[in-house]
């Protein structure tokens, strides 16, 4: 077993890429950081490599293991998709999701489920993405732990759980220090008509465009996900997000999540002044405008908000208590892209976030 420490230096991770690829090509087993937890990497087409993985992990045979794919283009090489699934994949990937689809049997059959399906991942994490791309073929994507035990965020905690014999079967360990505490990916089964969530990760889809949050942190993550996959990719210059939700639903938390993606870290509630604006650099949006209409009682006030003026220019406009000006949506729709988001209070620790375009 060889151990390489790269710490939190992503450059070092790229430097050692050739060595990792060499190990994978020769059928080796690699422990490697990911966007979620430490994972076991092995060549998904190499039966002996996969067998080694299953042994070390004490994974019962027949229990499927998902794979990292080299890129979006390669999806159809590994799994079958129809149009609807394809469009969903485009929204979710890259991201912290594992999508289960009918396998085309181009990987070692041990990785597939009994029903012949395969879980695929394209993580939003450069080191893994570029590694798998350079490798040019699917690589296993399973957490580096003993089956049934919790995942690991540091190499030390992982090593403690291993016997010497088991450790000797691992060829290479890449220690990138402590990983941020992101939950393992959300596993979504698309093999049947409806969307089925098999494992809950940080971002939880209960349906198409429906997310579940159980903490402010999760609300921020969902916001970031929605920002990356919906707001950022919309074609219009300006984008309006109407946020509907009760007091304490997490609207400001949601906005903070988006702010973080834009490098704005000092977002506070603007309800006292009505709105705040933030300058943004390094993004296609040049300004973040954060409205809070909580104090608005009378429809006639809206004449004084001049929302149309924000349609011009590269503005991302987030409007808390957006339900109060639903009537303006039709008018604004002609000039800008509008997203309507509901944050619904389920119980003290649970919110449902619904996205409508």
């Amino acid at each position, binding site marked *: 077993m060889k151990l390489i420490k790269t710490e939190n230096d992503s450059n070092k991770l790229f430097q050692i890429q050739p060595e990792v690829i060499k190990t994978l090509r020769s059928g080796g087993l690699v422990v490697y950081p990911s966007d979620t937890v430490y994972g076991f990497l092995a060549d998904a087409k190499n039966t002996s490599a996969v067998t080694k993985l299953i042994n070390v992990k004490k994974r019962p045979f027949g229990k499927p293991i998902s794979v990292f794919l080299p890129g979006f283009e390669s999806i159809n090489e590994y799994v079958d998709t129809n149009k609807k699934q394809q469009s969903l994949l485009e929204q979710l990937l890259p991201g912290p999701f594992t999508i289960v689809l009918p396998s085309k049997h181009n990987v070692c059959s041990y990785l597939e489920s009994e029903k012949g399906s395969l879980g695929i991942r394209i993580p939003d994490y450069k080191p893994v993405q570029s590694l798998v791309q350079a490798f040019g073929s699917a690589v296993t994507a399973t957490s580096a732990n003993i089956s049934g035990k919790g995942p690991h965020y540091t190499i030390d905690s992982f090593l403690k759980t291993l016997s010497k014999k088991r450790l000797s079967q691992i060829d290479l360990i890449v220690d990138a220090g402590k990983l941020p505490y992101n939950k393992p990916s959300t596993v979504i089964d698309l093999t049947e008509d409806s969307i089925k969530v098999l494992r809950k990760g940080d971002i939880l889809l209960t349906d198409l465009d429906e997310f579940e949050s159980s903490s402010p942190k999760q609300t921020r993550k969902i916001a970031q996900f929605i920002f990356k996959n919906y707001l950022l990719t919309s074609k219009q210059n300006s984008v309006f997000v109407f946020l509907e939700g009760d*007091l*304490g639903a997490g609207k400001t938390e949601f906005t903070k999540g988006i702010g973080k993606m834009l490098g704005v870290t000092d977002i506070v509630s603007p309800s006292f*002044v009505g709105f705040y604006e933030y300058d943004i650099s390094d993004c296609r949006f040049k300004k973040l405008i954060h409205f809070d209409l909580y104090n608005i009682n009378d429809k006639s006030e809206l004449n004084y908000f001049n929302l149309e003026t924000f349609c011009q220019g590269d503005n991302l406009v987030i409007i808390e208590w957006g339900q109060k000006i639903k009537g303006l949506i039709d008018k604004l729709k002609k000039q800008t892209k509008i997203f309507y988001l509901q944050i619904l209070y389920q119980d003290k620790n649970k919110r449902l976030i619904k996205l409508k375009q």
Partner: protein
Amino acid sequence: MLIFAVETSCDETACAVGSGRKILANVVYSQAVHSQWGGVVPHLAKKEHQIKLPSIINLTLKKLKRVRKEADLNKITAFAVTYGPGLAPALETGIKQTKLLAEEYSKPIIPVNHLEGHIYSVFVQNSQGRPDFKFDFPYLCLIISGGHTQLSLFYDHLQHKIIGKTLDDAAGEALDKAGKLLGLGYPSGAVIERLSEAVENKDFYNFPRTMIKHNSLDFSFSGLKTAFYYFVKDKSQRFITDNINKLASSFQQAVFESVIIKLESAIKKTGVKNLIVCGGVSANKHLKTTIRQLARKHQAKVLFPRYDYLYGDNAAMIAVAGYYRYRQGYYLAGDEFDLLDRKPRLNLEDKFIWKTKK
């Protein structure tokens, strides 16, 4: 030296003339239009500023005439104007108007940070020079208002360091929101204060004190707001009416206690014993009493603004802050006015925009 100050960062249209720390004329116009709406309406505020500012400027000069014979803008040394933080369209109006005046009378402009203004509000003197006490740096400052809640250190003129701030709602905003849920109108801080006094500011419901266990000096009131909302939501109108004093007092107590706890740990952490407490919410008598008790406990001295008009937004504090900026050369000459733009999220620590040039 005379400084003519303009403040339009939110819903107060205000002008003042200062000579050093002395305020010779001061006018504050609170835009009553917003109370019928239940909050500040951005473009309505802008419109109001545009309509009212010229007459407020004239009124200020009239007042100046009472103490100075020659009261016209030619005699002014410089104009000071708030350029942030605040509401963008509102700030914009004050800046635009000030630029026009400064151009017309060929005077420099001193851009002033609104938060720094609040800190200087405790040093504002009347036209007779009262109160008369000297600066004794460093100070530990608590700004507590409808738009801001933060702790900072004031080392010397223009030298600030933020040590804690709200992560979500400001204290005054939280009080306003609770007041709204209780049907008390806007703004509701003063009503909550009266309702609480009637039950001796006691706590009956023990709403959560957010972030008090947290080691940082940051504030957070959104958890308290949420807890209060869901507490009140299930209750009948009858219950709320019957217990309005208790509800108001308990909420106010939760807000104030969170603030006091952070202020006390700031005193302990920094060892600074000269306190400045300013901003609209600090006008609350019960809060003042509690802060004075805390100061006594730590053998600390505390400064509040001396005159009532200094708690809310006003231009007197901008004139005094502007004076200290001017003394250090922080002002813009006529050909540099383009550099001056509104900064809605200006931070107390932010370096001045013309720094690169000087």
